[in-house]
């Protein structure tokens, strides 16, 4: 929901800033003031964490063209690293733990990004699966990561930045929102900088990129590092702000696919696409299930209802993709530009 119009800041277009700023104001004031506990706990917190993961994956897959199925593994690395930094180093501010955790995730990302120097497309996707399985196995196998908790499940610490403690659902919402806003801004800066253009050059034609002087190897590894950093921090938010427990099983392959779907549905190579996609993936099933149980709850048991919701959701996703293969972001942009015809249609970043 934060900085949405990443790809529109090329010109001195004052209007382009209005929407993201307005959304930020709403997110920082109206949502916590008027939003129910349910809205914040069950919708906004997972939405923010998954959006951030989508932003991270979009840098790698959308901009740099490297398909990854290891997102959940990097989230897990981030969550467990943050827990350990926070737990084992006394007096380390939480925000430093979070950033260090992102750094650990980035390092792991670079290691699992190495095959990308030789592999492409599906082959690379399969090799990133290794990250998915290896990380989950290692976190379960070695008790040290979860401080030898008998169930391997660890608890989130109290959240604080610079001495301010973020308590209750609204507090945790602010904590997540501040981090998501900052990192989305960072991702947007990366995407619109020379680095971002290098990513796109590598994605569109690796050989050509090499000839015009883009350091392909470095660029690919940088994409893995930056993307894993952001995804790692998203993992921290998922574990600390949303669920408040960390267990390796929560970061399984399903989650990786979910994040990949978020950017495909939302729109590849856009920052706001991740937010659209996450909104659809998080909010839609909930709305559907509530409407379903309200209208038909007495007639069917919850299992039948859940199955039919999945069918509806699947059909809707297929419809979206056929009608708008570039994702919800493109759909939004078209509507927006129709309204603002005087500005003309904006170019893709």
């Amino acid at each position: 929901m934060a900085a949405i119009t990443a790809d529109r800041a090329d010109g001195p277009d004052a209007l382009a800033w209005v929407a993201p700023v307005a959304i930020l104001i709403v997110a920082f004031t109206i949502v916590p003031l008027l939003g129910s506990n349910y809205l914040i706990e069950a919708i906004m917190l997972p939405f923010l964490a998954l959006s951030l993961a989508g932003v991270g994956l979009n840098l790698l897959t959308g901009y740099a063209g490297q398909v990854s199925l290891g997102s959940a593994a990097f989230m897990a690395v981030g969550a467990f690293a943050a827990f350990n930094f926070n737990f084992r180093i006394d007096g380390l501010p939480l925000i430093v733990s979070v950033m260090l955790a992102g750094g650990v995730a980035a390092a792991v990302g670079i290691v699992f990004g190495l095959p990308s120097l030789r592999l492409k497309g599906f082959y690379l996707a399969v090799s990133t699966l290794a990250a998915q399985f290896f990380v989950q196995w290692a976190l379960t196998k070695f008790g040290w990561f979860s401080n030898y908790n008998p169930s391997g499940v660890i608890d989130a610490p109290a959240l604080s930045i610079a001495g301010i403690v973020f308590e209750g659902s609204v507090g945790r919402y602010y904590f997540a929102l501040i981090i998501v806003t900052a990192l989305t801004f960072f991702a947007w800066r990366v995407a619109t900088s020379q680095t971002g253009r290098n990513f796109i050059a590598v994605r569109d034609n690796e050989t050509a990129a090499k000839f015009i002087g883009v350091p392909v190897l470095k660029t690919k590894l940088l994409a893995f590092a930056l993307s894993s950093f952001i995804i790692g921090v998203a993992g921290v938010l998922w574990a600390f702000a949303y669920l408040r427990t960390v267990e390796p099983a929560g970061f399984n392959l399903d989650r990786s696919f979910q994040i990949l779907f978020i950017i495909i549905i939302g729109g590849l190579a856009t920052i706001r696409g991740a937010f659209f996609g996450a909104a659809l993936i998080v909010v839609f099933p909930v709305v559907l299930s509530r409407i379903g149980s309200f209208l038909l709850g007495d007639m069917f048991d919850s299992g039948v209802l859940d199955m039919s919701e999945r069918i509806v959701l699947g059909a809707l996703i297929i419809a979206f993709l056929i009608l708008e293969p570039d994702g919800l972001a493109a759909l939004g942009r078209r509507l927006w530009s129709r309204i603002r015809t005087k500005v003309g249609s904006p170019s893709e970043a």
Partner: protein
Amino acid sequence: MTSLKTLLRTAAAGLVFSIAAVALPAQADEQYFPLQSYRVGPYAAGGTGFFGGFIDYMNLINTRDGGVNGVKLTWDECETQYEVERGVECYERQKSRANAAAWNPLSVGIAYAMIDRIATDKVPLITVNHGRTDSTDGRVFPYVFPLLLNPYSETSGIVNYLASKEGSLENLKGKKIVVLYHGSPYGKETIPIYELLAQKYGFTVQQIEVPHPGNEQQSQWLTIRRAKPDYVVLRGWGVMNPVALKTAQKVGFPATKIVGNVWSNSEEDVIPAGDAAIGYTAITTQASGADYPIVKEIVASIYDKGLGNLEDKKRIGSVYHNLGIVNGILNVEAIRIAQEKFGKRTLTGDEVRWGFEHLKLDEAKVAALGAKDLFHSINVSWDNHEGEGYVTFQQWDGKKWNVVSDWIAPDWKLLRPIIEKSSEAYAKEKNIKIRTSAEAENVLN
């Protein structure tokens, strides 16, 4: 941006609509059970059986007695598919409805994610036969109840059973036990306790991991055959259980020497293994079968009137169904006990918590409830939230489970200091003040 706004507006409208739907004005004298059930997904067999039994029992109380002392039981289901974040969403959704009595998610993961939340909202969280071992310590976890059996007690119960087969605990000396465990946090939870008991009683223990999901166990069973253990304890989950039994048969290890834990004890675990499961024994807190008076009554007044929750009537009296019924008994009796103190009306979550902390059903009371031999007894107190559940062992004869042991008591005295050490560490980490018995009597209404 218009589309985003529209999207948000639609979502908001949908939310308002649906929140309004659940937040109907509370009727007088009802006690609401939010059920975070799972009827689809990989663990649907457990979910449908357990929640089926629970709902059947509540139905019986409503139709036979008009509720608990006139207070109607109500419930609704929210599908979790055993996934933690769905469980959390369900929690946030269902808690907006008034008069919640207790939560029963039947999922370790969801229970963990709820521990902080229920401590704030002050409604009990029941994790019958599973859950976090150290939540047994009610001094630190006032609202969590791992009723009947926590994982440590299960381990102790199994070792005591093996001792009874050998004649006495002394005879375990020099014996060799292999624990075949599921490669997950759940599977690993009892590793230290087996080591401790091995040391104490002088048997050797070898613990072998089966990676999730466990549909390939050739190498593990070859290792077991080489080790020639006296017993194998199967600490499995889902598909791992029938595969273990079949592979054991393939390598020639007799099923009679395999003992299953509490998540390897259902019909769904042995029927797919066919002949290989004959002679296999497993621990349980509630016997299976439909011959108990309470199960018969449920069949007569619920199923015969077409009100039963199980679709497949053959599953009536199965291990999971009976666990649901026992869970229903424990929840209902806790409310009844709390009503004796606070009045025969809708109770607050904290009053129900008090009820659970005084949930004492001796054998006579269990028999009066029509559950003689279905489960033994329970004795919950403010600081012991497990309640000294007894275990029994059932052997599979190819068609049904037959009880083959007496009711066996785990060695609670031995386990309590380990549990307290763990819970006190948790209290320290989370800055929780350790509760006293006087504070436990202090009830919010």
